[in-house]
């Protein structure tokens, strides 16, 4: 389809396994530029595996299919190349990295991305100004910047730090892997606010979530339901409400081969 709405990400028949076990069993999904897609599903349906495969996690072995990102073969790129091309994964479980200063790390990341784009490195002053704004957006404690990455952060602080990094790196395609899990309602609103601030006609997002609650604040254009490694239902934002009311059971039952 040739329209104004160019396809940013196209996943075709994607199959992947982890530790010899097939998890993704043929995913087809197209994300247009400017669109927000929610991927929902019960635990163990393959949501996080899908997010991990897109970001380039090496434990996940892709056995079939293709992923095209802005016209390029995404699966052929290293994780860092994907990030520099504008893909961002907000981790379900952000990694603690003792000894690596949060600000130093983020500046290195930003400059790696900028260098790839052909932009000059950002200097210390410019960086400080940038992060001050973004921290305000996420209502983050400035002291977190001088601490090691995620080290000793509370669950909520870690999730906020993910979205904060996203706000600084300004990705073209953001993948949020259960960013809502473990957040209270106030933190959830702040995180959603950070994501919404980044929404624009030239950015896209895939919001992976188990619950409909996050989608009250990050309203998706499309909702997909993943079950046993396949997308079993796609629809508009109302599908999320239906899932909230009826649960996943009826879809799983429908998806069973007769």
């Amino acid at each position, binding site marked *: 389809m040739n329209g104004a709405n160019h396809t940013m990400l196209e996943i075709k028949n994607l199959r992947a396994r982890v530790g010899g076990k097939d998890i993704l069993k043929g995913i087809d999904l197209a994300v247009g530029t400017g669109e927000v897609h929610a991927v929902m599903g019960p635990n163990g349906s393959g949501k996080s595996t899908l997010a991990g495969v897109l970001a380039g996690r090496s434990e996940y072995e892709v056995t079939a299919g293709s992923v095209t990102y802005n016209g390029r073969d995404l699966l052929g790129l290293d994780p*860092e190349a994907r990030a520099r091309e504008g893909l961002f994964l907000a*981790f379900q479980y952000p*990694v603690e*990295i003792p000894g*690596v200063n949060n600000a130093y*790390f*983020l500046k290195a990341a930003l400059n*790696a991305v900028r260098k790839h784009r052909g932009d000059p490195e950002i200097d210390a002053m410019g960086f400080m100004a940038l992060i001050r704004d973004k921290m305000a957006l996420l209502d983050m404690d400035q002291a977190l910047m001088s601490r090691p990455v995620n080290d000793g952060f509370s669950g909520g602080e870690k999730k906020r730090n993910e979205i904060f990094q996203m706000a600084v790196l300004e990705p073209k395609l953001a993948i949020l892997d259960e960013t809502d899990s473990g957040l209270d309602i106030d933190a959830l609103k702040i995180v959603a606010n950070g994501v919404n601030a980044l929404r624009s006609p030239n950015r896209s997002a895939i919001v992976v979530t188990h619950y409909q609650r996050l989608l009250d604040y990050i309203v998706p254009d499309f909702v997909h339901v993943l079950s046993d490694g396949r997308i079993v239902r796609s629809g508009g934002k109302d599908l999320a409400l239906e899932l909230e009311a009826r649960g996943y059971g009826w879809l799983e039952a429908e998806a069973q081969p007769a």
Partner: protein
Amino acid sequence: MATQTASRAGAGHYLAAIERAQRDRAHEPAWLRDVRRRAADAFGRMGIPTTRDEEWRVTNVAPMADTPFVAAPLATVSSEEVARFLVPGLAGPLLVFIDGRYAARLSAPGVLAAGLTIITIGDAIERAPASLEPWLARHSDSAVHPFAALNTALFEDGALVVVADNTVADLPVQLVFLSTVTPSPAISAPRVLVVLGCDSQARLVETFGSLGPARGFTNAVTEIVAGDGSVLEHCRIQRESESAFHIGHTAIHLGRSSRSSSHAFAFGGRIARHDAVAVLGDEGADCTLNGVYLAGGNQLIDNHTDIDHARPHGSSHELYKGILGGRARGVFNGRIRVRPDAQKTDAKQTNKALLLSAEAQVNTKPQLEIFANDVRCTHGATVGQLSQDALFYLRTRGIGLDDARSLLVRAFAADVTDRIPLEPVRAELERLLASRLPFLLGEEVPR
């Protein structure tokens, strides 16, 4: 060819060198000649250690027994060549030694603060031997450390630093020992003696380096005598060439309520060993021995520490971090002795090693000998690899694999580097560490 006159194999070349050196010692005072003779005898008895010696079980120094090291010919070295071994931005007296000999032209002792005396060991022997006699070779035990004995028998030059009672020598004393590339492998035996008076303070930075791919042998001894209530900050940076042999011995004797903090960094050497030996000789002494060692290729880097709690209420803190790549081997042996009299001792030892390749190895051994009952002694050792989760996380933010690995390795060492009080030294060590990492992280091990 030298004949092997020692009772132990492998000492022949060295005994011949001691013999030659003795001819030039007529001007030395009798006590010093006596000290040297006893050290030579002790070395003759022990010889070059073999892997049958418990203290050298995993550190094979056979190549050092086999190489007939000679005295280095006089070399001409420019201050530009020396510059890269100086800690940038570090003010204070500077003494430079080339192949173990003092190089006045390259040094800058400056105007010394009142109460601080720095002279070369050579000058001290000639002009003020009495200033050496109470201290020299009193705390480096020649009876059990063969290479320390060898140094005592052989040393020609080095530095004597004396800090008078109640003197605060704020500016760090920087001692730089450089080896040149010589036609035949050369030996040098620099000697340092630091004496801190009561309630004095001093800072010392020692650097050992090679000007080019030197294949020689540096056999260094530093003795530090910390008087009652004194405070010492010491940093030792060993960055010799990957083809050099380096044996270092740092002996620290702590007086009542004195505090000594020593950081040892080892980057260089085909075979490099450092023994840090501290005696808490009176009540309430506080001793820190920290270190970082980096080895890649076929390097072998050995750190032995030995802390002797001889008196009550002493505390010791030890943190060593090893980073090993290629086919390198690391050794850490941490001995802590608590004598029956040393009640209320608080000793903590931690050794962590990071293996960056499948072929790198580390041997780590705590050795606690506790003879007092009211003490707290803890030790812990870990060996690990870079966290794949952390690497992936950094990469998903656009940081390349090499940079991500480098970042994590530097973070691993930061526990130690962050504790170095002198900012210019800390910055220089972080730089040196980062600059060595490509060698350690090299995918291919050279055949």
